């Protein structure tokens, strides 16, 4: 005990902690302070037992141990602090011989909430740019200017698929995948469902929609009903054909496979978010000779669907489906704005790649400004 006290009092060792930086955590709702520090180059870390982050809530009061860390730590974030209140910190280094050394006390730091997430400025710029392009094309559309987008084979085949199934006297099967109603892929699938339902009503065909999620089921029922209404055949709408199947991934796949094998639909639409069950469903559909039109935002499932189905809407094509099928000028304006954004991105990627090459060759990091701007906090 005496040696411990003497060691603490008469220690002449300098603190192994240098360059202690204490700052308010950026881009948060407040209540958080970040500490960063380095160890002296000549410090023997093997002699350190642990370090303590010491917080002084009020000058003149005893410091509080905020956290105990291993001697390899170089960063700590103190949380649950009071916004607008100043805090000071220092680091206490405990050695294996039982002695300790304190670092210098930091100046007071006040945690605060921020009004702008600075790491997301690039995303905000993209959104504003997109918004400006959208307003421009919406104005054009409202003036009656004709907006055209490229033909999408998978969407052109929708009417043919419905017609083929009708000729064969078979129902249509529409699978919305495993997504919930908050997934954009599911919403895009619902837009395609409306068009298919309209055509089914026109041709007096049955459309079966087994759902994975009850909320999606409710939305799908409304969508199909609206499709039949718009086609002028509300009498043909059968709510029982849009039903909940199961909330289990492979149970859903098994259920869909059963429907395919028993009811032998003439056309199968796989539109939504799909995972490992995509190929199980698509291959079963192929085995009965149904025409299949798939579309998903799941990049990993796209190769399976391309291999197993007749037409595949690749990602954004699916998102463009409702605009493409409805030909609504306002919806087409969003697609035109999207296309221009894509051109801007391609330009940025090319310029960025060139600048990165220059930065790599010259060793001057200032050439990487495009990368730095878009990487934000990810860097």
């Amino acid at each position, binding site marked *: 005990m005496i040696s411990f006290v003497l060691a603490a009092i008469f220690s002449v060792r300098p603190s192994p902690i240098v360059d202690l930086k204490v700052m308010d955590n950026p*881009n*948060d*709702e407040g209540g958080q302070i970040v500490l960063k520090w380095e160890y002296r180059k000549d410090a023997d870390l093997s002699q350190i037992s642990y370090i303590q982050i010491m917080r002084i809530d009020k000058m003149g009061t005893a410091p509080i141990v905020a956290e105990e860390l291993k001697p390899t730590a170089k960063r700590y974030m103190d949380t649950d602090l009071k916004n607008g209140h100043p805090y000071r910190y220092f680091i206490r280094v405990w050695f294996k011989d039982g002695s300790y050394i304190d670092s210098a006390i930091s100046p007071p730091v006040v945690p605060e*909430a921020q*009004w*702008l*997430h600075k790491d*997301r400025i690039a*995303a905000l710029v993209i959104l504003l740019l997109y918004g400006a392009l*959208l307003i421009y094309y919406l104005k054009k559309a409202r003036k009656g200017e004709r907006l055209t987008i490229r033909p999408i084979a998978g969407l052109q085949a929708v009417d043919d698929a419905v017609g083929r199934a009708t000729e064969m006297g078979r129902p249509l099967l529409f699978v919305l995948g495993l997504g919930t109603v*908050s997934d*954009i892929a599911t*919403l*895009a699938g*619902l*837009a395609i469902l409306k068009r298919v339902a309209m055509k089914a009503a026109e041709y007096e065909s049955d459309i079966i929609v087994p759902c994975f999620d*009850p*909320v999606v*089921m409710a*939305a799908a029922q409304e*969508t199909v*009903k*609206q499709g039949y*209404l718009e086609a002028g055949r509300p009498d043909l709408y059968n709510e029982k054909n849009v*039903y*909940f*199947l*199961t*909330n*289990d*991934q*492979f*149970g859903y796949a098994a259920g869909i496979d*059963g429907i395919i094998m028993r009811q032998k639909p003439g056309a199968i639409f796989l539109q939504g978010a799909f995972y490992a*069950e995509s*190929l*199980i469903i698509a*291959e079963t559909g192929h085995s009965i000779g149904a025409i299949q039109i798939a579309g998903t*935002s799941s*990049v990993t499932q*796209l*190769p*399976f669907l391309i*291999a*197993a189905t007749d037409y595949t809407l*690749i*990602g*954004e094509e*699916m*998102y463009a489906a*409702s*605009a493409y099928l*409805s030909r609504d000028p306002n*919806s087409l304006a*969003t697609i035109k*704005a*999207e296309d221009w*954004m*894509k051109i801007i*991105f391609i330009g940025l990627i090319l310029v960025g790649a060139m600048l990165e090459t220059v930065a790599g060759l010259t060793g001057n990091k200032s050439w990487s400004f495009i990368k730095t701007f878009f990487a934000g906090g990810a860097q």
Partner: protein
Amino acid sequence: MKREIPLLISFIAGTLIVISLFVPHPPFNKMEETLNSWYIIVSGFTFILGIDSLLLYNWDKIRRKSKDWPFALTVILSFVVTLVWGIVSGVRTGHIFSTNSTFRNYFYLYIYVPLQATMFAILSFFIASAAYRAFRARSLNATLLLITASIIMLGRVPLGNAVLIPVLWIAVLLIAWVVLLEIKATTSASTRVGYILMLILMVVIAVPLTKFLYGNLSAATDWIMDIPQMAAKRGIMLGLALGGIAVSLRIILGIERSYMS
């Protein structure tokens, strides 16, 4: 009003979520979390709708003795047995998945899990049949896909390097055969010249390519996965992100209304 109120709700909820992405300050910081909690509560209640729909659909089939009605009966029986067994087991043991729960030990482990595993296992056969159709060397694109896939598959298995030479030469002969067929089928003189040049190029690079791959199969596989594959994937993802913004804005601004009746 039937259309305006849902549109207004969509606009307010969508706008708040967008704002919360850029503004970390309260009250926006908890906005997404709060709205998601509301969604979870609402979706919990919709399960009642889902069960109602499932039971009515199948009961209707049984009542009308329609084709395949025994399957509908199986669904209803399975539903009732699972529900009753689960409740009884949960009440008896305190938790439905406790180690002495009969529901967990008999139903879950010996019925539910094997059924799921069976469905998942079927996937491997479907992958084989779909891959066969995709890789059939019917066109130049499909043949290039076959060769690339062969390199990737060989690079990912321990024996890959040992069987590389015969597999690669079979692939080269296959592509040569396809190119010859294309030359024969095409009517355009410029396309024919292009194919002939491609054939010559193939003959010239076949031996050095084999030599190169023999020592660097793993590196070549990584290169294909990291550069061309990743570039294509990122292109799709970029389109998806922009498409996602377009759909979201259409919904927030009330342009997209297909989900409403």
